[in-house]
């Protein structure tokens, strides 16, 4: 039955969150609703813009420093060493060593290498370390949490699946994460893949907990019972029906974990166990710059500020997502 009404301007502004949205033709999918709520958080949007810019920079950086070399991070130019940002290349430089535009936007380091070029190269590596590590941790976390949540009541021997998996999670949680990473990374042959893997396998625990909690709640809901009553196979219920619903906290967790992974990588580099050359990451540029704090502070400040900016953006986006996904925080209309 249609309701003859004059929607107030406020109601139109509320749009699809309105209870009568379908009658007004303003309904939207949960994803659109999420986006709309997220958009209202200005800090989170700022973080998102920065991240999008970062991805572009990282991809471009990888391109411009690795494949079609415009900014060469490896060129050593001793006459031009330790120049502050925005300085020009000196005339003593031979032609093939000259930087593009004859300038160093971020200055040079102790070997005359362009900090800008190194930062460009490092952006791709730092970002991929974060993303790969978190992908690994997500994979493990979702599996463990999902199994514990869904099959929790089944027993293997005297223990239930849930108990076994959760005790296992507890054991891993007990270990001092950073110390453990340090130990493993120091004892293994240095390689970027090892670092990614180690960070990944030490940060899945909170994801597992969230997923398990969501699955436990979802399992009781009617749509799962309905799916079972229709005779759908279990794996299908898990993957097509439950996991999409459980994604919300996982997404938040993932974003914040990437931030954490980038910080961890930089801490490892600081201690000398990070990614080794030829890869440059912002972490090891920062660590190298440590010796020149007094004389050439930009070598330290620039990568530090970059890490701060990126990590902050991830955190802001993660928190924004969390607020947007939390129904309790949305204001009620009356």
């Amino acid at each position: 039955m249609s309701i003859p009404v004059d929607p107030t301007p406020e109601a139109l502004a509320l749009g699809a969150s309105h209870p009568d949205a379908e009658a007004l033709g303003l309904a939207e999918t949960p994803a659109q609703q999420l986006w709309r709520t997220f958009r209202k958080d200005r800090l989170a949007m700022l973080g998102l813009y920065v991240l999008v810019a970062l991805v572009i920079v990282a991809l471009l950086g990888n391109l411009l420093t690795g494949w079609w070399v415009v900014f060469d991070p490896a060129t050593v130019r001793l006459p031009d060493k330790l120049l502050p940002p925005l300085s020009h290349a000196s005339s003593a430089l031979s032609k093939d060593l000259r930087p593009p535009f004859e300038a160093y936007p971020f200055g040079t380091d102790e070997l005359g290498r362009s900090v800008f070029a190194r930062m460009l190269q490092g952006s791709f590596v730092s970002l991929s370390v974060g993303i790969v590590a978190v992908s690994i941790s997500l994979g493990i976390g979702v599996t463990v949490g999902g199994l514990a949540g869904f099959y929790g009541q089944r027993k293997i021997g005297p223990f239930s699946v849930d108990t076994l998996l959760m005790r296992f999670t507890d054991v891993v949680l007990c270990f001092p994460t950073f110390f453990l990473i340090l130990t493993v990374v120091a004892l293994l042959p240095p390689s970027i893949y090892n670092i990614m893997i180690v960070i990944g396998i030490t940060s899945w625990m909170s994801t597992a907990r969230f997923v398990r909690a969501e699955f436990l709640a979802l399992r009781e809901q009617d749509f799962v019972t309905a799916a079972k009553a229709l005779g759908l196979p279990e794996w299908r219920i898990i993957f097509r029906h439950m996991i999409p619903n459980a994604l919300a906290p996982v997404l938040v967790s993932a974003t914040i974990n990437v931030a954490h992974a980038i910080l961890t990588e930089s801490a490892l580099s600081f201690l000398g166990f990070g990614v080794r050359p030829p890869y440059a990451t912002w972490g090891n540029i920062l660590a190298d710059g440590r010796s020149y704090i007094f004389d050439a502070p930009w070598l330290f400040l620039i990568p530090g500020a970059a890490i701060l900016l990126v990590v902050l953006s991830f955190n802001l986006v993660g928190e924004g997502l969390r607020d947007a996904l939390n129904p309790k925080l949305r204001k009620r209309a009356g």
Partner: protein
Amino acid sequence: MWRFLVRTIAQRLLLLLVISIVSHTVIHLAPGQPTEVDAMNPMMKAEDIARIRQSFHLDDPIYLQYLNWMKDLGTGELKSFRDGLPVVPKIWGRFLNSLPLFLCTTLIVWTASFPIGIQAALKRGSRYDRGTTFVAYTLISIPGFFLSYLLILWVVRTFHLPVIGLQTFGTEGANGAVRVMDRVWHLVIPSLMAALTGIAVLSRYVRAQMLEVLGQDYVRTARAKGLAEEHVVYGHALRNALLPFVTMFGLLLPGLISGSVIFEQIFAWPGLGLLGYESILARDFPMILTLNFMAAALTLFGILLSDILYALVDPRIRLQ
């Protein structure tokens, strides 16, 4: 309640055993023989290396090594690879150094976070709240050593004061008051740095908890009774909001080892974190192993302590 406690303790002890086994396995799986470090030294002959390997049981199968380790640890006989000195007294010595830093940091974090978090919750949406939120996020996002170095830079340049180490070089001969002041001064900056991230994280959590509690029905009841707003907030709401933090107290313990590696490195503070770092560099297996194990054990005790505190403090659990 006692049954609950006994059962919990038993579970934790079992977990401790599992952790020790896992620690041991992980360390021994890592490639890189401890004697490789010394193998570079041309003065070490093959027989010496063999002797080291034998005295540290490195040729035995892994489970025997585990049992030996446990036995040596228990009897205090466990010796470090680096210099053959017993592991436990070394750890104890460094622990005494780490302790004041840890206590000072914890004190700062916990006394500062609550007022900040509570005020942010009460003034939700205000400029204070948004300001502290932004600062908190920034602090969480800064690499710890970055901020520390910036601060060191500033302090040294502006005040020309030393900040590294336990005490200023050359003050050993000075009288008691000067030495105490010097040590306190050296303690303040590192604990402040280490505390900043802690405050950022904890105050956010305090704020979230307060907000949740303030929305509860019993807070509305308290207001309906005619109680003054301060009484409602600090008497009724806070008492409930604090419950989870009492349990967090126990979980602070592991911070003794793991939290401090970076900061001890920066400030050259000879504590447990630095010990761990040096041991890793030197591939000193017994030390690394013991430290890892102790850190995990500390976490476990921390969890146990939290469980006990929670049972004591929450009447809903206490009276089961």
